[in-house]
């Protein structure tokens, strides 16, 4: 190996890299929020007594979980314009991430809801809680608490998967890195720094999840 490492030329680009990381963070955070909403809705649909609703949720989950994320991204950005739905790269990336995460979250939340004992819901009814109160306090929160670690790792996965949206010219961290490498060919240095940035973002998200967990569920710890 006679490669000469030159981190200087890469540090000069750190602003661009941080801008890319910022888009990755924003896309991921929004995808997590909307993905969770889609997931809860999907899980409720799957537990619904209406067959059509169950069928729709089932089809959605199977279709998304059994196709590659990259194809979903390309479909949203390049395919949807054919039916008149034109999104910018960032919007298309976010939509694809929400659709993708929503399917996985549906299954995770469904597992959580199944773990809520029937007696707990009956107890809620016996206490005279409204349907909304039962859903919120007796089903949803305990369900989320049960599957919180699984949700967290799925959220981290979608952030890491966001690196492929560079293909549709969304300028997230990996896209910026690829552009810099194409210009100065310092692939080792650039990707090493990018790896560090992804790791830092993962740790930041995990820290945030820990804080949210404490805020939501702390008082339940017996």
């Amino acid at each position: 190996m006679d490669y000469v490492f030159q981190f200087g030329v890469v540090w000069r680009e750190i602003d661009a890299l941080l801008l890319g990381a910022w888009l990755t963070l924003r896309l991921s955070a929004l995808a997590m929020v909307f993905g969770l909403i889609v997931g809860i809705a999907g899980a409720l649909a799957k537990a619904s007594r209406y067959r059509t609703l169950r069928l729709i949720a089932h089809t959605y989950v199977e279709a998304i979980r059994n196709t590659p994320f990259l194809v979903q991204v390309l479909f949203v950005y390049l395919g949807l314009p054919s039916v008149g739905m034109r999104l910018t790269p960032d919007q298309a990336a976010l939509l694809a991430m929400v659709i993708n995460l929503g399917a996985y979250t549906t299954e995770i939340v469904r597992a959580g809801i199944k773990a809520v004992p029937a007696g707990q819901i009956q107890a809620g009814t016996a206490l005279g809680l409204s349907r909304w109160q039962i859903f919120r306090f007796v089903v949803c929160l305990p369900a989320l608490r049960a599957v919180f670690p699984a949700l967290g790792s799925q959220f981290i996965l979608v952030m890491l998967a966001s690196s492929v949206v560079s293909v549709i010219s969304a300028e997230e961290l990996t896209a910026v890195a690829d552009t810099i490498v194409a210009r100065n060919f310092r692939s080792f240095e650039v990707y090493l720094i990018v790896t560090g940035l992804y790791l830092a973002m993962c740790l930041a998200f995990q820290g945030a999840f820990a804080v949210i967990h404490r805020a939501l569920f702390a008082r339940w710890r017996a």
Partner: protein
Amino acid sequence: MRARRRTVFLVALSIVLGLSLAPFAPAVTAQTVDEIIKRGKVIVGVNTTTPIFGLVGSDGQPEGYDPDVARLVGKYLGVQVEFVSVTGANRLPFLLTNRVDMVIALFGITPERAQQIWFSMPYATEAATLVAPASRAVKSVDDLAGLRVGVPRGAMQDLILTPQAAAKKINLMRFDDEATALQAMVSGQIDVVGTGLLVYRTLNRNDPGKNYEVKIVLRPLHFGIGIRRGQIDLLQWLNTFIYTIKNNGELDAISRKWRQLPLEPLPVF
């Protein structure tokens, strides 16, 4: 009985592991012509996302101007050709990290790139251009203000437009490869696409009615075969090879087949 079953299992496991690790063995690339001939194959990086110069054919093999030149390299060296798909952005790293012996992938000859690799004599004429439908009024780079201009990341169009994009308010969008940029053009996701001289024909064939045309020639280019620096032996062979196929009509045949144009006179250096 149980012990034997375990032995069979272990042997099977080690075979599977061995096979799965094989692709991760260090890339063994030849540095000289003799080493390529001794190995019996030449490993060539080609771009398979660019109409005319390189696409994947219906048989799954690369086809186009560049793959045909690569096949001639194999023919004259008397070895098999192993194709490796590269993109505009990763072709240089692929060369520098010894994954390929040479890159024949629309590699425009520039002094910046020549700081990292060596180029053979030119084997093709091209240009970095901007293409748009006839209805789009674009005559110079200044007219691109406010337009979405899609380019392949790291390609010449990207390198030329990036320094002026901010000042001229060009919405420059970089795609991972040319095929995606062209698809974005057809989908209406971009207004102008950065490509070569002849790709407008492919666009018109696949998306009729828009009358795509070359709006701006950013820079005339010649393509050279890229090799690692210092491989004087391989460079000398490649230049002799290009001289030969230029004079015996084989390169002209490739040009007529893929570009529907006779081979223009090519400069030498």
